[in-house]
């Protein structure tokens, strides 16, 4: 017998458009931020989150996988990428191109508002443990705090028992791993080893173009995304000084002595 529809899980996956990790980051001349006129793609940890949601559908009873992104108009491309990987629908909380990047607390509040608007209650939120652009690593935890839900961070393995409404998550901790069991609804943040995201196939990319994307604004959600932190200055790390070559061992020893390094 098919499980009754109320048992099916609704998964929400927040995704962020970030500077692609292969791009060499350059600080802007005003030292207020980085040059963003470069290739962007989905934050790699979020890609892992989308992949995990799609895989969960392959092994448990999932009713829907919805993506949500908060960002400028181009963020809709990030949604399309996730839809091509297998998500069903997207929500785009659109910010003007010129708006400052929202901070974790603002994002968490916006996500809470999105979750509260859903007709079908959200059971699982899977999101990246951090975004590789600002490396804040706070959104998942803040969201769990705001909602009062269970949280399992830095997940390297996820099992969900949809009937028992329970999640078992292996998380990466210093020097090993830890297994958690928690009640749904749950917030899970992904670590690198959780899975290896698939490449979207062409037929799926084409199908993704027809999947629905709902557009919202921060005011639709009743949230204010104005930053509350002030960035004083952004600078590049000090340049590494290159090594030199020596012709022979004697020269090496002389150089070492010069540098004050001697045999103990």
């Amino acid at each position, binding site marked *: 017998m098919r499980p009754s529809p109320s048992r099916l899980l609704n998964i929400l996956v927040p995704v962020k458009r970030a500077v692609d990790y292969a791009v060499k980051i350059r600080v802007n001349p005003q030292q207020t931020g980085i040059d963003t006129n470069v290739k962007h*793609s989905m934050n790699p940890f979020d890609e892992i989150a989308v992949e995990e949601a799609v895989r969960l559908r392959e092994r448990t009873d999932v009713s829907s996988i919805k993506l949500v992104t908060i960002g400028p108009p181009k963020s809709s491309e990030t949604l399309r990428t996730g839809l091509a990987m297998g998500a069903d629908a997207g929500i785009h909380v659109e910010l003007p191109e010129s708006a400052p990047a929202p901070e974790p607390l603002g994002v968490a509040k916006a996500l809470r508002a999105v979750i509260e608007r859903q007709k079908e209650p959200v059971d699982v939120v899977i999101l990246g443990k951090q975004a590789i652009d600002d490396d804040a690593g706070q959104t998942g935890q803040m969201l769990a705090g705001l909602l009062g839900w269970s949280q399992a961070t830095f997940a390297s393995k996820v099992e969900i028992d949809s009937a028992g409404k329970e999640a078992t998550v292996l998380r990466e901790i210093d020097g090993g791993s830890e297994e958690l069991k928690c009640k749904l609804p749950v917030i899970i943040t992904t670590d690198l080893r959780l899975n290896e995201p*698939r*490449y979207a196939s062409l037929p799926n990319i084409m199908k993704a173009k027809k999947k629905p994307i709902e557009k919202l604004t921060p005011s639709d959600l009743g949230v204010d995304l104005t930053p509350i932190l002030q960035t004083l200055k952004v600078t590049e790390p000090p340049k590494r000084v290159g090594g030199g070559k020596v012709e022979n061992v004697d020269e090496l020893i002389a150089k070492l002595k010069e540098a004050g390094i001697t045999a103990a």
Partner: protein
Amino acid sequence: MFSLRQVRPLVTRATRCAHTRVQHSDIDHFRQFLQPSSILSTLTDAAPADLEPFNNDWMGKYHGQATTVLKPRTTEEVAKIVSWCSQRRIPIVPQGGNTGLVGGSVPLRDELILSLANMNKVRSFDPVSGILVADAGCILQTLTDYVGPHNHIMPLDLGAKGSCHIGGNVATNAGGLRLLRYGSLHGSVLGLEVVLPDGQVLDQLTTLRKDNTGPRHFLPVHDTSPLERTLVFFKSLTIKPYSGYDLKQLFIGAEGTLGIITAVSILTPPSPQASNNVILALPHFDNVLPLYKTVKRDLSEILSAFEFIDRTAYNLAVKHGQGRALSDEEVEGAQCFVLVETSGGRRDHDEEKLNDLLEHLLSAEQPLITNGVLSQSPAQFSSLWALREGVTEAVSKEGKAYKYDISVPLSSFKIVVDKTREHLASKGLLHDKAVKHVLGYGHVGDGNLHLNIIADAYTQEIQDALEPFVYEIVASYRGSISAEHGIGAMKTHALPYSKNDVAIGLMKQIKQLLDPHGIMNPGKVLE
């Protein structure tokens, strides 16, 4: 046509017209002008193992017995070495990154190896004209990284880019993955500096560079405006530096038989602002040609590569972890794959074109493709390329490869691969302990097929089954036996299959003229 027995010599015979081998006294001479670290010789203190990387080729197929490797740092040092060797009749093998696939870069016997590895400096780069002048020993990838921040790219790219030298590329007239877009080195190389077999330096770089000794720029960069510099540059292009015989062309593809290239001046194109790639899975080989036509029509100026990989090659690349691909179900039934790359100036424009093409391909009534994958990020872009570029490496991990790099009409790519496989099967040589795989991949845009036969070990029996068989099929399709890898030691005997008597006669005369003592890479290209 030739009967094979007539044209086939002993493969390992080196032309040795009274050549001498390197002696201790020669090393003493080299010590007068070379730094100690530039001399590696078993006649003095080096262990034979130190010379192994120089004596053995990339495939582990050709093995030399050189006692001495010299690694000069300047053109002057190269000239002094060559002039000494010329007087002493010591044969020389010029060596770049030693990634050549036809045995050209290692000695046939105990020739002296002259490695360009220490000549690895960029001499000048003009970001306005894109002209790069570099020592021959610069690694291709290093040059790509050098010009990248100035928004230029090298006009060539190949799987060996992390090791091969620009000098080696020119010496083999390497084709590679960007040929479709930027043409051959015969066009993009603007000048060469070559040490001739008698030690003279043929400097064809000077016409492009204003000053040999001062700040190394062709054009004074500081005291002129960009406009002035651009004008001067265009003038320099239109006033041909050399009227008369275009001598540098002789050294492009000469595989070190006419002299040692010590520096290269090359025109680098501006980097495309947007690149995309896609791998397409095809149900039949027959679809490749119609697909090529469609892709050319729909993408026109942004098409920059169209590479073919047959199923066996694809499977091997996946097996040996050369990049990520589609899932097994997604490529079920695919007989071959094509990688298409676009490069253009505007991301939105290019993506729109590519998307239109893909939509058109997928929605066609009789689709030419069954599936595919479009890269979504630079990382995916690299990993799709790695699948194609990684084939060479995957092949070498799988076993011992017989490599034929041939040009045949596109429509016969598959027939050539199939016929070779059937032929080996008919000889009882197609099994785990003999030939494991026969596969094909290559640059469709250039009509260039890499036919690879992967064996458990190199054996005379397999060799005899393959040659002249392969050369004969190529000849029957009026193809060429060496599309881009060169002749080296591997194909000297087969040269008559794609060059006629007149051409070979002329080549021999040129060789005789430039290298009367036959000391430059003997036994390579010409017998």
